């Protein structure tokens, strides 16, 4: 009830603001409204603010203020394979996000189908369990949704709803072992501190199968790139599920429940599902498709040092540079083409910082004749899975991984 009263007050406040009129609103344009960036989304709208208004964050593309959806400006990905914390993308589901975290009082509860319920302090986690770390890409299920054609509703991301960090934490397996998983456990469900504004709306929760949860790779992280998390990236604890889409990487993780029945909660069973088809792709309007929870990521690659329409010189070497990731495995190779996929050349790869992370690639290209070109890149992962040459489509705008292209001009 308290929530509903709060809701009423908020609505009333907004109605009053509305009555104040357009002029007053124009005057109250927030001071943090700074630069505008155009995202090349087919049909638009393409203008987005670059905001620096979020604490602990640098310049970010503002997709939604509340709950925050902040996209990483794409030029950040040219600087290296690790995405800086202050420009790592942000995506929340519900607006009630705690903004005051007392590290002495925070606890992580482990309960359900276990021998003993645990209530772990941050000290218990940081100092009572072995510390592990690995590099891994965290990518929103709907990264690049804005490029879907026909367009679909949802966060209208360009390609910046992804990032790669070195994650430090403890193994989920060690925490589960400490609680003692009982025979018959089937899944483990994760919940964070965010809450819906409307009291009876579904709390955000995600589940993993018990064997996946105990694989020794899934991690409860307390640091990214050697620092504690920015609050909006999930401080103080975040689940890290290497190779899987970010929907499973529950932020502000404070509750782990071992289940002896499959999870039927909305966010696992209904939301974040994909067609059970190759590339999760269907025809627009296609009905009666079997849907399954989104899961492993697929390979992707990008050019990071050439912008659309950029001019390069003929007869001289041009450096091409970018990043790739294999999804649920490492990068085996990156190929590029400047003749619309008729011929491909392999690009030398940079240092391997871990199979789940970004891998830089770089090549030298000398074009002999001027004209318009399109630079295509294609990653093949170490499981032999390559990016497809046609875009997938599904109504939620999930799992885009077509071989991307950038148009440029040789003069």
């Amino acid at each position, binding site marked *: 009830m308290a929530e509903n009263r709060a809701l009423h007050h908020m609505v009333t406040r907004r109605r009053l603001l509305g009555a104040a009129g357009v002029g007053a*609103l124009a005057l109250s344009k927030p001071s943090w409204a700074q630069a505008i960036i155009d995202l090349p989304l087919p049909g638009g709208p393409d203008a987005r603010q670059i905001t620096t208004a979020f604490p602990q964050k640098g310049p970010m593309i503002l997709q*939604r203020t509340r709950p925050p959806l902040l996209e990483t400006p794409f030029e950040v990905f040219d600087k290296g394979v690790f995405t800086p914390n202050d420009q790592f993308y942000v995506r929340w589901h519900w607006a009630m996000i705690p903004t005051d975290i007392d590290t002495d009082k925070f606890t992580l509860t482990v309960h359900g189908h276990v021998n003993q319920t645990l209530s772990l302090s941050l000290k218990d986690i940081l100092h009572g369990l072995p*510390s592990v770390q690995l590099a891994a890409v965290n990518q929103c299920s709907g990264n690049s949704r804005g490029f879907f054609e026909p367009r679909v509703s949802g966060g209208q991301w360009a390609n910046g709803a992804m990032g790669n960090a070195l994650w430090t934490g403890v193994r989920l397996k060690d925490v589960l072992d400490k609680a003692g998983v009982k025979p018959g456990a089937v899944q483990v469900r994760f919940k964070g501190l965010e809450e819906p504004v409307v009291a009876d709306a579904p709390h955000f929760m995600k589940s993993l199968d018990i064997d996946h949860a105990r694989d020794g790779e899934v991690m409860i992280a307390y640091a990214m790139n050697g620092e504690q998390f920015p609050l909006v990236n999930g401080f103080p604890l975040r689940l890290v599920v290497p190779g899987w889409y970010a929907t499973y990487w529950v932020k502000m993780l404070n509750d782990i429940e071992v289940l002896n029945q499959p999870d039927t909660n909305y966010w696992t069973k209904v939301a974040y599902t994909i067609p059970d088809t190759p590339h999760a792709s269907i025809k627009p309007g296609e009905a009666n498709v079997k849907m399954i929870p989104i899961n492993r990521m697929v390979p992707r690659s990008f050019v990071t040092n050439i912008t659309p329409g950029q001019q390069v010189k003929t007869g001289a070497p041009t450096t091409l540079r970018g990043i790739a990731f294999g999804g649920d495995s490492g990068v085996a190779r990156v190929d590029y083409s400047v003749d619309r996929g008729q011929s491909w050349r392999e690009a030398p790869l940079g240092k391997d910082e871990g199979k789940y992370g970004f891998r830089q690639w770089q090549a030298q290209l000398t074009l002999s004749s001027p004209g318009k070109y399109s630079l295509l890149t294609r990653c093949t992962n170490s499981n032999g899975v390559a990016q497809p040459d046609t875009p997938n489509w599904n109504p939620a705008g999930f799992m885009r991984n077509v071989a991307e292209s950038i148009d440029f001009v040789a003069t």
Partner: protein
Amino acid sequence: MFRRSLLAVILLSVASMQLPAWAASAFELKPVKIDLPDSDKMFPDGPGSDAINNNCLACHSADMVLNQPALSKQAWATEVNKMINNYKAPIAPEDAGAIVDYLTALKGAK
């Protein structure tokens, strides 16, 4: 100092290219207290703008909707019904229709 020691751990692990398990870390977390920015942006005036302003802005700011592409009336109705049925938005039935009409007028597919 803690940051430096963690960095040393990171450098070691990168050098060994393994997934190393270390003894309990010396890392410490500091409490955080911030204020998140809000948005007072309203939907542009038009038939149904009161309905959308009064019903939708408690859970999310208007920029999310204004950033959406043009969608068919049917797609907008699906969106509004999702907010009501899945996300429990307390929207009166007469307002739901007005909101769908408003969105279709503002951002309807041509």
